[in-house]
């Protein structure tokens, strides 16, 4: 019997040792991994373009971890709107349409709503475009409200939780506040009916009304094929120090300056317009993508809203993003360590931008470029058709999966009502 006791003790010890990972059994050597919480291993210097093992969180596979049920809404909520204007497929708000298409054919979709963890409502709220191509948000609250009324009356799942296990894609400027002007958006606040739902949006700013706790921030849509077509050979030397193309003053809406971008873009122009290191202008060159690949830093300042597709473009083309937007929440911030990839500049520090950028040590810059070269990073920013593993669709699903399981308290008792269906401006209550 004595020997069995020792065997038992030995087993316990082995289990203990394995548990605390004192012995590494066959784990690959982690170098330059993108792990959200841990600092990547710096001791081994891997060559820049051999990206090593990719991020652990980014490569999670959501299939099998959640089930999504897609409501069948009448086509006036989605297909008919798209038919009216095909530009919705190529502008930066196209994520809502592609998310719908992805979910329809994804393995996480389930046709049985009883076993679904999440419910998706395909309503294209950002597809009412002006002749110039900018979306008007004035009908969006009514559209959303009408859709929610439909699903709450035809299916019991909305009333079960009042939307706590539903998610919506609202890629507009200020998310579910449904307005392009920030003051107006703040005034409106998030649509009252979406108070309990999870919002998947591009807008993200800390301590802001329009960013709800538990929202998932996604990158704006950037056309993957177009960017792919403009790649230049990797050995082209990066010779531009700072690159930016875009408006500094929005003359149509804010002639004196100070409102647009909180004066930050104007400050960039006024301070650096004659600086040879800063290749900044308002032109629309045809070589925009190629130039980004020849630049070391790409400015991503805020505009009317803090997010912009420039971040996506900078990450795809390996240009270190310089983010000038106070308190911004970047896409998939829990999976991508933006602090280590980009440079964050406070808006008040914009006049000293050149000092800040030139005083970054070269090793830090090279490390950021190495991290940017990681293909899983680039993949996570894109919405490719058809979907590929590790892309933005999967990151959204990963985010949703991380929020599971739902807390028991979200399930309401019968008769309990939390949402106020008559809240909000009077104009929103009109049927759509």
């Amino acid at each position, binding site marked *: 019997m004595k020997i069995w006791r020792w065997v038992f003790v030995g087993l316990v010890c082995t289990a203990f040792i394995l548990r605390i990972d004192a012995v590494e059994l066959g784990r690959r050597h982690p170098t330059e991994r993108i792990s959200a919480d841990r600092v990547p291993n710096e001791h081994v210097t891997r060559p820049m373009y051999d990206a090593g093992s990719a991020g652990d969180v980014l490569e999670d596979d959501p299939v099998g971890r959640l089930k999504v049920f897609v409501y069948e809404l009448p086509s006036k909520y989605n297909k008919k709107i798209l038919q009216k204007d095909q530009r919705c497929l190529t502008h930066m708000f196209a994520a809502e349409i592609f998310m719908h298409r992805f979910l329809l054919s994804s393995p996480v979709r389930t046709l049985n709503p009883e076993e679904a963890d999440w419910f998706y409502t395909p309503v294209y709220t950002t597809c009412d475009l002006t002749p110039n191509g900018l979306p008007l948000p004035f009908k969006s609250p009514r559209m959303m409200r009408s859709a929610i009324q439909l699903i709450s009356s035809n299916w019991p799942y909305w009333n079960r939780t009042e939307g706590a296990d539903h998610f919506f894609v609202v890629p507009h400027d200020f998310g579910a506040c449904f307005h392009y002007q920030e003051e107006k958006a703040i005034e409106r606040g998030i649509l009252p009916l979406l108070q309990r739902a999870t919002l998947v949006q591009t807008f993200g700013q800390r301590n802001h009304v329009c960013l709800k706790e538990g929202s998932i921030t996604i990158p704006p849509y950037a056309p993957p094929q177009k960017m792919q077509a403009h790649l230049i050979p990797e050995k082209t030397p*990066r010779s531009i120090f700072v690159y930016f193309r875009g408006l500094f003053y929005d003359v149509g809406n804010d002639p004196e300056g100070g409102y647009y971008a909180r004066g930050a873009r104007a400050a960039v122009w006024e301070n650096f317009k004659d600086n040879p290191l800063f290749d900044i202008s308002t032109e629309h060159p045809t070589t925009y993508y190629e130039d980004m690949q020849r630049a070391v830093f790409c400015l991503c300042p805020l505009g009317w809203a803090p997010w912009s597709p420039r971040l996506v473009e900078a990450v795809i083309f390996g240009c270190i993003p310089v983010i000038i937007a106070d308190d911004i929440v970047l896409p998939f911030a829990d999976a991508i360590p933006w602090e280590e990839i980009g440079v964050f500049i406070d808006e008040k520090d914009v006049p000293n931008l*050149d000092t800040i950028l030139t005083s970054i040590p070269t090793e830090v810059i090279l490390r950021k470029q190495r991290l940017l070269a990681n293909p899983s990073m680039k993949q996570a920013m894109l919405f490719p058709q058809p979907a590929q593993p590790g892309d933005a669709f999967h990151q959204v699903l990963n985010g949703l999966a991380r929020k599971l399981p739902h807390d028991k308290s979200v399930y309401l008792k019968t008769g309990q009502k939390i949402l106020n269906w008559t809240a909000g401006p009077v104009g929103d209550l009109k049927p759509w």
Partner: protein
Amino acid sequence: MKLSALQQSYLSRRSNSFRGSAPLDSSSDSAIKSPAAIFWLVLHGLCCLISLVLGFRFSRLVFFLIFSTSTTSTTNLYTAPFRNLASDITTPFVSSSTPVEIPVLNRTTPNSNSRVVVGRHGIRIRPWPHPNPTEVMKAHKIIERVQREQRAHVGVKNPRTLIVVTPTYVRTFQTLHLTGVMHSLMLVPYDLVWIVVEAGGVTNETASLIAKSKLRTIHVGVDQKMPASWGGRHQLEAKMRLRALRIVREEKLDGIVMFADDSNMHSMELFDEIQNVKWFGAVSVGILALAGNQDESSSVIMEEGGENTAMPVQGPACNSSNNLVGWHTFNSLPYARKSATYIDDRATVLPRKLEWAGFVLNSRLLWKEAKDKPEWVNDLDLLDGLEDIESPLSLLKDQSMVEPLGNCGRQVLVWWLRVEARSDSKFPPGWIIDPPLEITVPSKRTPWPDAPPELPSNEKVLVGIQEHTVKHTPKNRSSRSKRSSRTALRCQEFNLEADILRGIYLVVEESTERKQRMETDQFLSRPTTLSQSRPFSAH
């Protein structure tokens, strides 16, 4: 009424411009011509006038100060808030006082510890918004480091030493050409051995020139002098190159041998591209053959066969699957009548069928014994007896083993050119003016001595050396005096540019008689033809 209209237009101005119609309450009340309406109209007009004068719209400031109805107003204090689009007078942002935090109304944010406020902010401009040279230098260092890293990981791994063979000889344009090649070689990021073979023996002039490059050089001489005809020159150059190849074999230099003629132009990509050669490679060479009389030769070409005046290119020819199938050589027929025979002819200088400059080879091909040396290579000794070796292809038994480089010959990486001065042209040895020149020209302030005013000729101020043969004949003197009077007036013009020209040698002549006297003295005593002045010195 008017007030509300103004206010509404202010608040919803953004939506008016390009976003289409906003659902504004229509303030289309008919303009009742009551005294109040007229008063507001007059006030509005007055405000417009004031804005015109001031240059900015001050209505916002007025509204902010008087009405302060906007929900969340700006917090930053600024003295010159508005940027005038028209002018550049942007006063700097005075942020001496801490920003005044106007309490945010509670309907904006539930947790108002955000430091980001909506509304109008000042445009921050630092007091000296211009580049700082130290930072520019730092940025360039960063860029250079980034590019080095790029090259290290995407470019050539294990770069091999380059062995550059250059035949040269002392002549007027030698410095010009050799400096060009030298600077190209100094920029090459790989190890380099420069073998300079000189016709007429080793001279100090060439030696001092190539010593400036700080590269590893091997300078040898060939006793034969460079002949005056192009044909002879090409032949001697071939022999000189073989001499260099023999050195490579004797010293067992390891690397890639390339032929850089001293008047060619090499692109930096060439040096990166030839690192890809295994044994024997060929690149495309652009022929800049239309030197000399441009119009005549081009018209000649147009006559004969209508061949276009595109630059001819020599090099490997590939088929669509990027295999070598032949050679693009230089077609000299269009130039047959007008090609140069002697080095100082003003006609087109033609290259050979295939120039040496387009070939690179692995130095191990030249060694007596080297492992892996392919069998399709002739030994170097076999070439000794041959009279005219046109191109290093004679080293090969099998021409199909040549590797075409530069995207299979599609990239032109080196340009061939031959430009020479007359063979009897004189130039100061080493291009050093010694002893210094004697003529002084008065500076700007002194009154110009009398000179008969004459129309300025097209004689330009020569800021360099004038090269022409010396003929101590009276004819020369008279031509000089004519020129002197002509240029006198010119000098008066150049007085104005004296600051710029100070330190530069001018060809200027002052007064006729003084000049003539000096001329005769000068030109009788000195062998050179330089008539130059010392830099300006104030009298």
